[in-house]
């Protein structure tokens, strides 16, 4: 073939073209396959870390953790850490990554119900023998919490404390004063206050109840309210359930049903989420809510609240005013290449920084979340008290409620069936509230699930 300028074009016959491109395709295929399937496995040990450490957490709290990340990167250079955020269902998604071998983080946290499961599956590793761990343990202010950090199978320590929290009563003081209602100290008083506020038209739904489809909200609310009225444990020492025959627990769920039926609670509370319920209270649409002190700061921030300066904290109503103490924990993953570096990060996140200051407990937990850390040294730390002195925070009430906190789900919360139990109990609580199951049947259904699995 000839071009316009007279030079020749060497035309390639169709068959030659096909053969050559096919050969190129065959050659490229294994390369592509290798590129897709290529992976390198890492094993726990002390290999040098040629990337930042990674900590897994809910993505929603990234901004709260940012000062801590910056502080670590400054203080521990050349070590550095990156925040590996998980957008929704943190524990479920992280588990999926663990099971798939692609978690790719050095440190992670867990809420109650997961640590033993992760340890049994080899996804997190024991911390015994790491430098300074005895000193750290000696600073824990509650022996129950120390016990909770250990595996129930081999007694090895598999966690450090992250935060502790407990539910309490929050109320809008001016509304109660205007209606001539005293702060409720029993559940009967609470119910009477709701009835009056509704009857007087002060609030259409006086109680912003966290009864959404989240175990850490709806079940925690029910258990904490029942503990306020004298219940002590959900399970016996062998992880067999006792709560379904506990008259206090049955009575509490019966009350929930009654309050729902009477219209004290927004009916959509059960079909929404934490944010939606929180907005009911922060938006001035309810007189009461029951939760931990996490949102107190937000309720007193004008940009996110209509109840600034009006919301007060009170002990959980009931016969004993107890509440359920929950402990979230930090873990070191089994795949971290360098235990020493991961340990430095763990200590920083849980306890003290390089200079001996409780940086994360004060800056992130108290200052950011409004939750507590279980360290003896904090009580005398002036920075701690200063961090707690934001508007709306009643330090005395908080300390009193914390002292009335009890661990309630031990030892069942470390069994492999606990996650399924959490899911079922949450659903059954809602069915009990809706009246689709009797309170007795709702609790028994969840307890039977636990019984069936704890004995199998």
């Amino acid at each position, binding site marked *: 073939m000839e071009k316009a300028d007279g030079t020749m074009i060497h035309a390639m016959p169709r*068959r030659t073209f*096909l*053969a050559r*491109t*096919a*050969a*190129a*395709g*065959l050659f*490229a*295929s294994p390369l*592509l*396959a290798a590129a*897709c*399937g290529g992976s390198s496995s890492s094993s726990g040990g002390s290999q040098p870390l040629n990337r930042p450490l990674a900590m897994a957490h809910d993505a929603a709290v990234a901004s709260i953790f940012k000062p801590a990340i910056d502080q670590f990167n400054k203080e521990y250079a050349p070590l550095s850490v990156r925040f590996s955020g998980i*957008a*929704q*269902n943190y524990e*479920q998604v992280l*588990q*999926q990554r663990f*099971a798939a071998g692609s978690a790719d983080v050095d440190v992670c946290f867990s809420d109650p119900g997961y640590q033993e*499961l992760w340890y*049994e*599956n*080899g*996804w997190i590793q024991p911390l015994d023998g790491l430098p300074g761990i005895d000193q750290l343990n000696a600073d824990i202010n509650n022996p129950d919490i120390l016990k909770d950090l250990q595996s129930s199978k081999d007694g090895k320590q598999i966690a450090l404390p992250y935060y502790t929290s407990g539910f309490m009563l929050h109320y809008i003081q001016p509304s109660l004063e205007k209606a001539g209602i005293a702060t409720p100290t029993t559940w009967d008083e609470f119910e009477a206050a709701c009835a009056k506020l509704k009857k007087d038209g002060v609030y*259409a739904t006086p109680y912003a109840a966290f009864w*959404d*489809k*989240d175990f850490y909200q709806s079940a925690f609310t029910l258990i904490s309210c029942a503990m306020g009225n004298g219940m002590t444990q959900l399970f016996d020492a062998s992880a067999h359930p006792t709560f379904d025959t506990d008259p206090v627990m049955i009575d509490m769920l019966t009350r929930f049903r009654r309050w729902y039926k009477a219209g004290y609670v*927004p*009916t*959509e509370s*059960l*079909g*929404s*989420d934490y944010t*939606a319920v929180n*907005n*009911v209270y922060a*938006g001035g*649409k309810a007189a009461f809510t029951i939760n931990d002190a996490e949102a107190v700061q937000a309720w007193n921030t004008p940009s996110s609240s209509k109840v600034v300066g009006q919301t007060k904290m009170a002990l959980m109503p009931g016969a004993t005013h107890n509440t359920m103490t929950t402990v979230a924990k930090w873990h070191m993953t089994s795949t971290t290449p360098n235990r020493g570096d991961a340990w430095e990060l763990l200590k920083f996140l849980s306890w003290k920084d390089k200079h001996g200051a409780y940086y994360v407990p004060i800056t992130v937990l108290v200052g950011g979340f409004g939750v507590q850390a279980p360290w003896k040294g904090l009580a005398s730390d002036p920075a701690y008290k200063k961090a707690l002195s934001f508007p709306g925070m009643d330090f005395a009430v908080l300390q009193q409620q914390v002292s009335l906190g009890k661990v309630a789900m031990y030892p069942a919360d470390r069994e*492999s069936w606990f*996650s*399924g139990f*959490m*899911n079922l109990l949450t*659903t059954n609580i*809602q*069915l009990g*509230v*809706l009246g*689709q199951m009797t309170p007795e049947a709702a609790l028994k259904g969840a307890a039977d699930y636990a019984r069936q699995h704890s004995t199998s």
Partner: protein
Amino acid sequence: MATATQPGRPHWRRAPHSETLPALGFLLPALIPLGVTLAYPLAYAFWLSLNETDMAGRNWYFVGLRNYVSAFHDPLFIPSLERTLFFGALVLVGTVGLGLAFALVLNTSFPGRSIVRGIMIIPWSMSSVLVALTFGWIYNSNFGYLNGLLLQLGMVHTPIQWFSTGWRILALMALAAVWTSAPFAGLIYLGALQNVPEDLIMAAKVDGARGVQRFRYVTLPWIRTTSFVVAVIATLTGFTVFALVLILTGGGPGNETNVLPWWGYQVAFYNFNWGEGAAIFFIIGFITLLVTLLWYRLLVHRHRATA
């Protein structure tokens, strides 16, 4: 009046054997990633559905169809199936109906038509999580735009608690799903409408067919294959709903918005029953396939056979 039919498929020349190997060579770079990302996970999941495993998947016990039987006998199965069918039906009707309506409007001439076409792709391109969060705010009873609008228009006097009962929540979630899928369906329909031969329309006009008749006997038959595609997309959207349930309700109140995909997720990732979870997802896949075959029979095969 005779209905219009699309031209038949071209008859492709059978490739000579000497070209088979080069053709395979061309295909391999595409087939390998497809095999890795699609065929292997599917085969793995199917094998998983025939086994019981521990949480980390270290020990496997072959149980045959027991996971499927167990899923069918679970008291949550039938109610979840009913909700899934209800949700899927709403999404299907909404997507096909609104999509066609959008396309008919966009097929006419008006100023800014090209801008509107561009805007229509936006809902489809939004992440399902973002859509769920957005609609969560719209439906919020205290601060949501929907109640705000109804109150300002004087149509209601007290805010409606939209998320209080299951069927209503499912319908509202279906509306969110339709909001995402209908504009895209509209664009697909628009492409088909623009291929309806003008001479057929003209012939129908000459025959005295009015607008509705022309649409019924000329346009609709011509876009039947497109309707099949849209129906399949809508069926998939409806039967695999997940993010809306995850973000908005978690399956609540009680189990009132517990649809099959959410139930399967719970069985797998809360109860760690990987085998039964996989079985539930294959059941969803099978039901979706059945419905797709039904659309094929109704919209494509029957008319091809009579053409």
